[in-house]
């Protein structure tokens, strides 16, 4: 493996994030702070505990997960779409590196950026509310698995997309609604039975539930199911990426 090549892509992508720090780091932190103020402090102070956890603390894992999902997708999709759009992809394709190394550079950088954003949100949340992390190993595992999986998904989106508008549609129109309806702000057992069943088709439920379990030991679905679902999604993304590279789809004529 060419470490220098992977490092070049990785550093290039992180440097871009640093250059656009307002967009990549400050914006998600500010919007999450707003969620804490509105849902955590203002509305949350009038709500009871959920599973023995204050409402403000209850929403923290969901908010981190929501940012992690949208940031992973945005970072990775933009990372590979931009060189396709400007034409600089020729340099990546003509370099003496494998597709795996290309993937490692782009997806690694995107996942790193979203994990950094997630950790910053966690630190920021501490300003507003006390929380505990009962299972730090699993918290890190969920953080890493989710960031990697959705960065892979973003990479696929960046390959498939025909324009910047299509890059925005998935995080804004699909992921954010799924996150809102996936138990970020509530436990799914608060829903009527019919909607509880419907919600189980929402993949974000499993991510938020597993992540919340690593904090407070409470979950809507079992931890094994959550890990199984994220692993399934990870494998699906790997298969699609492998097919893209095997066929050169949208990359090579």
């Amino acid at each position, binding site marked *: 493996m060419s470490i220098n090549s992977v490092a070049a892509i990785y550093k290039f992508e992180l*440097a871009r994030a640093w*250059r656009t720090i307002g967009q990549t780091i400050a914006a998600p932190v500010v919007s999450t702070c707003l969620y804490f103020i509105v849902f955590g402090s203002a509305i949350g102070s009038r709500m009871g505990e959920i599973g023995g956890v204050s409402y403000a603390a209850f929403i923290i894992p969901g908010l981190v997960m929501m940012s992690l999902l949208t940031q992973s997708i945005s970072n990775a999709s933009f990372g590979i779409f931009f060189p396709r759009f*400007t034409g600089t992809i020729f340099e990546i394709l003509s*370099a003496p590196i494998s597709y795996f190394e290309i993937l490692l550079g782009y997806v690694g950088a995107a996942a790193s950026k979203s994990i950094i954003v997630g950790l910053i949100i966690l630190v920021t949340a501490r300003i507003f509310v006390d929380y505990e992390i009962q299972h730090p190993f699993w918290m890190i595992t969920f953080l890493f698995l989710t960031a990697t999986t959705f960065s892979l998904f973003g990479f696929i989106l960046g390959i498939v997309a025909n324009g910047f508008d299509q890059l925005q549609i998935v995080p804004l129109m699909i992921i954010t609604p799924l996150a809102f309806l996936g138990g970020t702000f509530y436990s799914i057992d608060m829903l009527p039975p019919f909607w509880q069943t419907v919600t189980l088709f929402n993949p974000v439920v499993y991510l938020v539930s597993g992540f919340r379990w690593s904090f407070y030991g409470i979950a809507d679905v079992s931890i094994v199911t959550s890990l199984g679902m994220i692993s399934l999604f990870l494998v699906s993304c790997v298969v699609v990426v492998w097919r893209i590279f095997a066929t050169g789809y949208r990359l090579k*004529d």
Partner: protein
Amino acid sequence: MPIISIKQLNKTYASGHQALHNIDLEIQSGEIFALLGPNGAGKTTLISIICGIVTPTSGEVLASGHNIVSEYRAARSKIGLVPQELTTDAFETTWSTVNFSRGLFGKPKNHASVEKILKQLSLWDKKDAKLRTLSGGMKRRVMIAKALSHEPEILFLDEPSAGVDVELRRDMWEMVRDLRENGVTIILTTHYIEEAEQIADRVGVISGGKIVVVEEKTALMQKLGKKELRLQLQTGMTEIPDNLSDYDLKLEADGTELIYSFDTKQEHTGIAELLRKLDKQGIDFKDLRSSQSSLEEIFVKLVREQ
């Protein structure tokens, strides 16, 4: 051993368009090879396949002895590419983008090497400038610097003169010659055939996805070129006299210019004999000059014949 060896290379795009037909080509180490061809002839497809950007349908390409598919790492590490389009990251600086290219091609950091390249290309004072602030010519130099950053043995220049002013173009050709002196093999495509005529050691003409001819430039011009002798007559003529019908003559400029075309390969050009005959006929001329057909004329002729 040739530095690039292409055997029976074919490329058919998904649309069904066959861009390359059974290309066989060898490029020798250390030469400047000009690939000429009209738009859509397959020049960029050929270069893109060698560089790994386009997948060949069939055939074999070796770069520096390495198969471009099965030994792509070794092959690509020897190659630098300056594409036709000025594709740059607008928000990057010259320094960062050239260092990025070096790293991307697996080379460790070497600021002294990058500095040398930037100075050679008169880009040193622009090292901290964002690429979007540079002129087209400067961007072209940055593209060359990026392609040279990993010290390639083979450099592809796809239409390097496009959008470059005359002075910069001269500098660029000077740099190309210097690179050749340092052992770099240069393969260039250009629409400025006059320049290929000046700079190339060998010329390949591609048309309709087929290699029409590959020849040493001077040999090509000798083989396919014609020379002309133009005589400005004292008195105009309406037709060429019958006893001069053995010569390839024609009249131009209302009969005041007599043009004699002769083959450069022939041992005797027949000029002296023609001039004697004209003298005998009492046909006087006030001026004469000879010219050789340019590479461009040869190129146009070859392409038209396809």
